[in-house]
């Protein structure tokens, strides 16, 4: 039962990474888009593609949190009493980001838009860094079973920083890829090339950091390194392949299969981490089984996840479809190319 709940938890982590990750990345590009006039076009595209979906995407975080604290309460408490600094910063970042984004949309004056936009964009970089570093702390075994680990060195260490930087870069890459495809769909050649270049740059950078990260893990977390190069090797290789395929497609300015390749690469990296970590939840000292709640609670969580599959997924698909649909009263039809 604990394994089943873990699978559902990890599906949530992957969904959060692929959907909200791209939203964070969009904030990254929003931050770098330059002044109000120069950044107008890319910001408009970011606004239009994020607005209808970001709240639904954000909800995957709540899903992961509630499964973690109900299913593995002791591990959750160990994590929060150790990594309270990055988690606290991430929580505040989420407030700034959501409020900033929502307020910018309804503001007309440039100085206000600048203020809200800056809050949205800066926290979109800070928050994934914090989540990445918490993942690093968890994977490198720096969260003691009883909690209360070192408040700084638990996440400010080679693995934590690697996790944080990688999270920011991967989010940026995903966002650039999604926005490239959206720009092409809208037939906007300038923005298409704008995000194509940024997708390539962030992709190459993310790939380089991942490759370098292998050596960091080898020194810092030998067990994880061993499993990544043995048990999860197929996943790691497939992820590398997906990442490369994405870069080739970007270089060739081809959008068919581009989003799928980039998303698959990220999902496979996350999956590879999960498989390498198994059967431990914290480092190598707390197993999933040790930390798991009584069976009845796990049963409820499995039930919730199944109902989510039946109710939420079709609703999400409906939302994503309506977002791309033209108006009923003869508004311009969606352009395909």
């Amino acid at each position, binding site marked *: 039962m604990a394994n089943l709940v873990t699978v559902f938890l990890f599906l949530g982590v992957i969904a959060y990474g692929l959907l909200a990750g791209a939203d964070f990345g969009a904030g990254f590009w929003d931050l770098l888009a330059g002044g109000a006039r120069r950044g107008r076009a890319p*910001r408009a595209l970011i606004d239009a593609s994020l607005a209808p979906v970001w709240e*639904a995407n954000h909800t995957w975080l709540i899903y992961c949190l509630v499964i973690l*604290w109900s299913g593995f309460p002791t591990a*959750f*408490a160990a994590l929060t*009493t150790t990594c309270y600094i990055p988690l606290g910063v*991430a929580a505040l970042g989420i*407030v700034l980001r959501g409020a900033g984004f929502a307020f910018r949309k309804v503001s007309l004056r440039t100085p206000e838009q600048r203020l809200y936009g800056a809050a949205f964009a800066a926290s979109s970089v800070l928050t994934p860094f914090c989540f990445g570093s918490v993942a690093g702390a968890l994977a490198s075994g720096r969260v003691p079973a009883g909690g209360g680990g070192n408040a700084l060195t638990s996440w400010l260490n080679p693995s934590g920083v690697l996790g944080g930087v990688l999270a920011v870069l991967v989010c940026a890459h995903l966002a650039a890829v999604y926005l490239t495809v959206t720009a092409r769909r809208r037939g906007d050649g300038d923005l298409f090339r704008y995000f194509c270049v940024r997708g390539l740059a962030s992709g190459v950078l993310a790939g380089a950091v991942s490759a370098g990260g292998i050596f960091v893990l080898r020194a810092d977390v030998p067990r994880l390194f061993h499993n990544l190069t043995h048990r999860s090797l197929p996943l790691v290789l497939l992820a590398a392949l997906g990442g490369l395929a994405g870069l080739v497609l970007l270089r060739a300015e081809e959008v068919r299969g581009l989003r799928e390749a980039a998303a698959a690469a990220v999902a496979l990296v996350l999956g590879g981490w999960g498989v390498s970590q198994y059967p431990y939840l914290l480092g190598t000292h707390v197993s999933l089984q040790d930390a798991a*709640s009584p069976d009845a609670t796990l049963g409820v969580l499995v039930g919730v996840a199944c109902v989510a599959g039946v109710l939420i997924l079709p*609703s999400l698909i409906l939302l994503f479809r309506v977002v791309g649909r033209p108006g009923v009263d003869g508004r311009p039809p969606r352009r395909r190319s």
Partner: protein
Amino acid sequence: MTTADALTYLSIPADADPEQLFPAREQMAFTLGFHIILVPFGVALTTLMLIAHHRGLRKGDTEALLLARRWSKVAAVLFAVGAVTGTVLSFELGILWPGLMKNYGSAFGFPFAVEGLFFFLEAIFVSLYIYGWDRMRPWAHFWCGVPVSLAGLGGTASVVAANAWMNQPAGITLEHGKVVAVRPAEVYFNGAFWLEFLHMFIAAYIVAGFVVAGVYAAGMLRGRRDRYHRVGFVTGFAVAAYALPVQILVGDTIARQVFGDEPAKFAAIELLPTTSSHVPETLGGVLADGEVRYGLKIPDLASLLAGFRPSTRIDGLEAVPAQVRPTDAEATVVHWAFDIMVGTSFLLLAVALWFTWLWWLRRDRLATSRWFLRCASACGVVAVLCLESGWVVTEVGRQPWIVVGHLLTRDAVATHGNLWPFFGTVLALYSAVGAAAVWVLRAMARRWRQQGDAAAPVPYGPEHEVREGPVS
């Protein structure tokens, strides 16, 4: 497990409070107190919007349709702020109260998983509804809003289930203080669940209704007495006014349930130091050194209300073991919060009766009676005050317990690190977000008034594709 059992292994001296306890409690109170104001708009404003929408479609009422459209834009902004401040609460459960999550997460935690499901549905359908204006066929679009209201109902039930469980924990088996078995149905549908849920759910409709009505009443006071303002006012006010008598009935029932099931909380509510019969109802007053000072006493009333006869015995605070007795200050806060909640409820009821009288006999006076409009425009703020004080009664009234009879608040709090910087940042950030939200909503309303809807950009809406990015 009874309180006395719990005390056998909880033998901590009273002065052993961790230094983190005070900032943690204040931060939780502040963030929850902030979030709870947004809850009625996620739960009930969306329903008001659907009522107006339905009227607009059914009767071809263009003003009602315009109201629905604008309320959806307001709901979009408030829903976003509510979503992120709600997320902060989930982080705080872990960061501030690890003892609660570690020991009871398997029971206390899962209602939130159910809530997550409802919140997910709500987030998806809110987006669909807001984005669906002009993109979907009118009735299909209307039906996209209905799951939002239903999800609000389910979400409220789930969050309240977790809170009610802290007041009346049930459905767990403990071995050496560790939860070894959970009976989910008993946890969720615990003894305090149904009434507490109903109370919060109706409160959401009352607050949203009065706040919405207050906005249009203020507009009418400024001379904007068109049909648009009247429909907006009546839709909000009528919903709140209908809900209010039901709420008072539910509240009265809860008070008797608390009398039976949570005697310590009831003693604090009544500000009663010693157990006795013929207990007077004390209005106001403070508890100092175990004695009630000042305050207005109405003979026998507390006993009458609790057990329908003056001879009803009510346990005083002295019946609570000294180690887990609320302090004088805590009891006074609970008592005042209760008095404010009841007092403001009856104030609101008086305005609601005034409204009914005008509606039946002198409908033409509804938009012109300045004194009625003044009172009606104040109802929104009064309703928020009522909501906040009700929440203080249930939360402070549980102290010193976080889970009654099982876990003391001071044993649940984080014991590492300095929480003050976190709290300080939260205070600054929330103040900024709150001020910006008010500012942004007022600017939206001003724009609608001056330029109409076409010129105003629509949050999350299709018009936004036309006008985007900074305007310089």
